[in-house]
């Protein structure tokens, strides 16, 4: 019986000739990522060794990555102390892929991993972050786990008791209209599947639209696969994956893709044609409350946010800067831009996007998670509305349960910033 990409990867990593959905396996981990919550992982990791005569030692520090991004720079003594503890721990353990708070090599974990070539096709990647699904964009099997599970991975180098998920296949065809792209596609799919429609499943993306999509776009759709409940989203690796890893991530050596067998078993197949798709928007307070932008146009917006692990990459900033060039952010609306990494920040600076944002009146913030999860900056006032290119709009997500968050693409966000109300960038476009 043929295997899907996830099944092939899990079989290889578990040392088995083949696996199928429902099997329980113990895959070896190729990359284990944490962010500030490494503080909790350390706590649990040390507890594993309690009462044994063993020294706490990470199984393979070269396969562990720790990245500070959620609260950078630290917003409180508590966070700063946690970061200090993590910094000391990774130094003592010799963790290889550590990214501290820096303007050159820092950034959001889900951008740092791909841009440094840490993820390769066929890898098993685990992260203490639900959006670890992002890395399926490079043909890996990548999924989010909790801190205690990561402590177990640090100790043993494998994930225990993984049930091989069933895979659904999404075939995408058609050419996007102007100002419509990967974010609109994934919002549309989440709306169709609902927030739990892919629970415990893998979404494997196929079709000509995906084949011609950049890795940056693939990161968007895999990132948000978890918003439909998916364990992982995967774009099988291809020429574009190899190009990205070589040209943008500086990877040398062979890139070997893992592709599904022709007779792979899919639990469900979904066909999508994007050629008629209009810009989409997720309305408060669930990600699956998706509508065409036109149906909520005119809604007043106090804060626009462009950035995050979903849409803080160079092409996103290029799109937003293109719309904002020579224009101003509407009075009464504030616009926050946070590039996904220091590298992207530098590239955007060189291309003039940062200057465009500043001239327009936007506030350009340091790379990191910024306002996405409402921890330390860019909070909303009572009754305020935000329009954001991030990935979650749950009640209270941006720090205030008495506010509302809409989710959209960078094009919708930028066009709306100019008008101060939710705006369809396609108005007048062909």
């Amino acid at each position: 019986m043929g295997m899907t990409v996830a099944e092939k990867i899990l079989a290889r990593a578990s040392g088995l000739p083949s696996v199928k959905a429902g099997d329980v396996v113990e895959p070896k981990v190729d990359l284990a990522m944490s962010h500030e919550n490494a503080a909790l992982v350390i706590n649990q990791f040390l507890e594993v060794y309690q009462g044994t005569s063993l020294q706490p030692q990470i199984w393979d520090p070269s396969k562990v990555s720790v990245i500070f991004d959620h609260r950078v720079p630290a917003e409180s003594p508590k966070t700063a102390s946690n970061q200090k503890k993590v910094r000391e721990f990774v130094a003592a353990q010799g963790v290889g892929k550590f990214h501290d708070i820096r303007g050159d090599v820092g950034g959001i974990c889900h951008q740092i991993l791909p841009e440094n070539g840490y993820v390769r096709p066929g890898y098993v990647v685990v992260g203490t972050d639900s959006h670890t699904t992002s890395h399926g964009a490079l043909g890996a099997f990548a999924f989010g786990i909790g801190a205690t599970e990561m402590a177990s991975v640090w100790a043993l180098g494998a994930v225990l008791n993984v049930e091989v998920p069933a895979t659904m296949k999404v075939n995408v065809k058609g050419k996007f209209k102007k100002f419509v792209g990967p974010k609109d596609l994934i919002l549309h799919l989440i709306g169709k599947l609902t927030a739990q429609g892919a629970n415990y499943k893998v979404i494997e993306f196929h079709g000509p639209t995906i084949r011609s999509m950049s890795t940056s776009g693939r990161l968007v759709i895999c990132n948000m696969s978890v918003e439909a409940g998916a364990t992982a989203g995967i774009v099988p690796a291809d020429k574009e994956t190899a190009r990205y890893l070589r040209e943008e991530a500086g990877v040398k050596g062979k890139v070997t893709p893992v592709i599904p067998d022709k007779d792979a078993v899919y639990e469900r197949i979904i066909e999508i044609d994007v050629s008629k798709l209009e810009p989409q928007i997720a309305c408060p307070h669930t990600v699956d409350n998706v509508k065409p932008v036109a149906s909520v146009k005119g809604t007043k917006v106090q804060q626009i946010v462009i950035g995050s692990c979903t849409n803080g990459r160079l092409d996103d900033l290029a799109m937003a800067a293109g719309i904002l060039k020579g224009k101003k952010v509407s009075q009464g609306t504030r616009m926050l831009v946070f590039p996904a990494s220091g590298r992207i920040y530098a590239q955007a600076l060189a291309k003039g996007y940062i200057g465009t944002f500043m001239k327009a009146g936007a506030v350009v913030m340091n790379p990191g998670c910024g306002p996405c999860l409402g921890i330390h900056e860019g909070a909303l006032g009572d009754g305020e509305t935000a329009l954001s290119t991030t990935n979650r709009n749950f009640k209270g997500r941006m720090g205030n349960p008495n506010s509302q968050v809409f989710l959209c693409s960078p094009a919708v966000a930028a066009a709306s910033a100019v008008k101060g109300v939710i705006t369809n960038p396609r108005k007048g476009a062909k």
Partner: protein
Amino acid sequence: MAKVVIKLGDDISTDVIYPGRYMATVLPSETPQYAFADMTDFNSKLKSKQIPAGSVILGGRNFGCGSSREQAVSTLKGHDLIIVAPGFARIFLQNGINLGLRTVVCPTIEASEGDDLEFTEGEIVNKATGKRFAIEPLPKARQAIIDAGGLIPYTRKRLVATSPAA
């Protein structure tokens, strides 16, 4: 017997269970104070111990969706609550199993606030209505972690067994 102290809707996210702004608090000993922090009434009842240990939170479908933050589990475990829901989001359920939070998957459950539930082998009996609902058994591999008392002791055992030094 356990009383349903609150009934919640579908898709209760980890942002509702444990708001992101308290994420700098990580230790299981400190997280319980922020359980459902934005549902201020319920939070204060939990904090003032008006809700007895072993009470039931009745969730809807996809309980615990969203972030992987383990605080969403340790905060509920700290109050020794039982979470009954027709379905859970994957990471939340796994975190619950790993930390020993009592999570019960009961796809057809019908109950209201104030109802007393009895947990039997494979079934929940709603004492208020007399109706019985099947509990979905956990996969064996997950049950093994629960039987070991959580993922930490489970991992410890494996580590000691496989370590050349031991």
